């Protein structure tokens, strides 16, 4: 890839924002698995596999899966964040297991019902 200029920076920013913030066309839902060392130690890799398996089993084509670093609350790992298009804010789920992933897919991702038992919070941290 060629060297980028400052103008390119703006272009990349616009393009990537589209995948960061869900919009029409890009996908209907996004699942972020938090994979810092703490998350992985608590089993985030299994969670990632479980997420991918759910998507495969259900033939979902509109769910984006991505990973990210530690969300800070290491004692409640593994955690995932679920975002659904047109929903006001992302939801963070704590202490995930493959079984719970199934439930989150059934209830939240497919039917739009937040699974309250596993949900930690809605929204994101304010950043500066």
């Amino acid at each position, binding site marked *: *890839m*060629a*060297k*980028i*200029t*400052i103008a390119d*920076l703006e272009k*990349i*920013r616009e*393009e*990537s*924002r589209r*995948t*960061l913030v869900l919009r029409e066309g890009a996908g209907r839902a996004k699942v*972020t698995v*938090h*994979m*810092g*060392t*703490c998350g*992985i130690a608590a089993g985030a890799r299994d969670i990632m596999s479980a997420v991918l398996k759910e998507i495969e089993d259900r033939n979902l084509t509109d769910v984006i899966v*991505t*990973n*990210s*670093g*530690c*969300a*800070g*609350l*290491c*004692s*409640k790992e593994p955690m995932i*964040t679920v975002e659904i298009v047109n929903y006001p*804010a992302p*939801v*963070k789920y704590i202490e995930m297991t493959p079984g719970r992933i199934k439930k989150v897919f059934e209830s939240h991702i497919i039917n739009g019902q*937040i699974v*309250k038992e596993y*949900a*930690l*919070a*809605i*929204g*994101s*941290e*304010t*950043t*500066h």
Partner: protein
Amino acid sequence: MVCAGTGCVANQSMKIKEAFEKELEKRKLQDEVSVVTTGCNGFCGVGPIMVIQPDGIFYQLLKVSDIPLLVEEHLIKGRPVKKLMYVPNENEPPIPKMSDIDFFKKQMLIALRNRGLIDPEKIEEYIAREGYSALAKALTEMKPDDVIQEIKKSGLRGRGGGGFPTGIKWETMKKVPGEKRYVICNADEGDPGAFMDRSIIESDPHAVIEGMLIGAYSMGSSDGYVYIRNEYPIALQRLKKAIEQAREYGLLGENIFGTDFKFDIKIARGAGAFVCGESTALMASIEGKPGEPRAKYIHTVEKGLNDCPTCLNNVETWANVPRIILKGADWFTGIGTGDVTQNPWGGSKGTKVFSLTGKVVNTGLVEVPMGITLKEIIFDIGGGIKDGKKLKTVQTGGPSGGFIPESMLDLPVDYDELTKVGSMMGSGGMIVADEENCVVDMAKYFLTFTQEESCGKCIPCREGTKRMLDILENITIGNGTEEDLDLLEELANMVVESSLCALGGSAPNPVLTSLKYYRDEYLVHVRDKKCPAHACRQLNVYTIDEEICATLGHGCDMCKKSCPDYAIMGEPKKAHYIDQLKCHKCGACYDACNFKAIKIE
């Protein structure tokens, strides 16, 4: 606003209104507060209902007798009365907003601003969150000296623990002549229980790279190193990937953003020696020499790596740099304590990341503004002590830091306040201990660590810490005397004063602070040969409460099976007892007993 719909009136809402008006009159508030009756609110199931404006607080199931309390608390003192407020169904707690959860509410993210939000392996996502904009700003709108002045003005101090003003370091480095000059990122985080730097690199590696680029530009360097410990495989892998991506995009290499500025970063992997976090030892290690520090009568900014001018900053410091350049020094100085306009040592600005570990409910990584109190970190963010136990002490700054007693929890967290009480900011470890932890035992643990990690180059650190550890070990097995405490203190001060580097210079801190704040606990160990927290097992005497054993446990034999010394006697279904001559005090029986029949004296 009192609901006067049929449902509520049937539930005596008019009486509530009367009582409310009477109460207002009694407190002479009738002119300030007006009582309005409204139509049916719609939530008849929890009537009588009242809404107090402008706060919009919704009260339900009111009784006449609640009114005086309500008026006093809410209208006079401004505290809404929780027990009268509407609570959604208890079985289905509402999902709180992220910003309303205590753990996140008091945090302020600068270094960790992208945590959990972006994919660290995609440079595009970093760019989408204003990434590399600060570099663009620095390269196009600012001269190198402007960058240094901005950092100096921001009052940013070294986040690795020393707290040296970053701007001054950069300025000094800038003045030193020399063609070849280096900037290094110190990612050799070695404190037990600390994982700030690891997490920053894992969640946002580009922030560190961008910070280094800006620093390199300001100091005229084109060579960078990240010294990262090999025990951080994920951080290492993500950093490598990030560097490759930055090269692909031309953000590392020659002619960055079409300017003359060139810079590239190499990774140096550390083998996990604690002392290699010390600047001179770290540079020796990059050069391929043994990781040993040298006396710093010549600073590394003058002669560092390969005898060239070298600027070393910690991961977190570098991660703060892009935000300061982008948002300005004034924004940064708005956060934190003290005044840095005249003197960069005058305060602590910005935020600090802490690894909150130990006996708190919410262990994790927290980034808080400087000046927040320890109490807020432990009780509001950390959620208090696990299992409802009592807090005993907080240890900050890792093995080189000190213990801070419960009485000092209102201490604002900044560089100078922590140093004043004998501890230090360190790289940001924060270990919380409860009443079941013994400070002598903890001091021994930290000293064991620093003793093992001492490189052995200077005698005070190599031999001094060893002797100190011998004394502590004696105390924890019941062979200590009162004179030992004085000797320990004397030795500790000697090691502090005469060690070559900061490892030895700070290693006795846990011992010194525990002697200062918990001398009584040491005295119980040496005089009565007891450990009040029962953590020093050699001082414990284990016995079995025969009554509990026989009646509750029916002589279940669990303790007997667990004992490696065959010291427990007794037949099944009858009370057991411990042969003290055979007991080696391992505590296995205590853990094995399901009926709490084993007592410790």
